């Protein structure tokens, strides 16, 4: 049987799809909308408090995992959607999509060390 990287990217796609389905709506609401809408006070997202949560080893691990899985989910689905739109150059599409996800994963890893 021919070797294929399909199971790896598909499992990242599926894991990312599941994790983001649970967490992204509430997270973007808390981060981006709750304070402007007056549901949370700016103090709830103060530097000291957010740093305390994210810079904790567990916080770093979770944030890195969430960013990485989101990117690989988006990359794989973008790749198949580009194909659906009639662009048949799948090799180029795959390289571009997975390179963006790979670069983002590296940058996320670096950011966790900078914290």
């Amino acid at each position: 049987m021919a070797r294929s990287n399909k199971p790896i990217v598909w499992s990242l796609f599926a894991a990312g799809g599941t994790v983001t389905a649970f967490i992204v709506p509430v997270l973007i609401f808390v981060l981006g909308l709750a304070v402007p809408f007056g549901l949370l006070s700016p103090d709830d997202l103060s530097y000291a408090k957010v740093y305390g949560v994210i810079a904790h080893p567990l916080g770093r691990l979770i944030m890195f995992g969430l960013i990485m899985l989101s990117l690989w989910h988006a990359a794989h689905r973008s790749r198949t959607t580009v194909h659906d739109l009639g662009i048949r150059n799948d090799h180029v599409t795959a390289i571009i999509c997975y390179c963006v996800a790979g670069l983002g994963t590296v940058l996320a890893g670096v950011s966790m060390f900078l914290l």
Partner: protein
Amino acid sequence: MTHQPYVRPMPASWWMRQGRYMRYMIREVTCLFIGLHAFVLLIGTYRLSQGREAFEAFLTALWSPAGQLMSTAILVMAVIHSVTWFNLTPKAMPVWIGDKQVPDWVIVAAHYGGWAVVSIVVLILAGRLS
């Protein structure tokens, strides 16, 4: 005479022809907003690492009218992603207990329940941090 495989011509706008194709395409395009959200988190984490002023500048930009528009778009598309993802879960991952298949609606309902719990816990924690 050479034999080329026949590729049926398909206009790039095929998905605009029917409501269900359109819904399929919207579901697939949610991934761009999931990716955008990942970059928001990435930039936010990086700005957090640069210190207080950088992080506050990040939040000011995120809470600007343009930032709110982006967050609203992410929220709407993320909710569409969650709903379509959970509704498909029993098809992608059927669950068997012994020789009986767990009904689809039980699997879907369990995911919606988990989604509600996660959302409420995050909201309470965010409010409690102060």
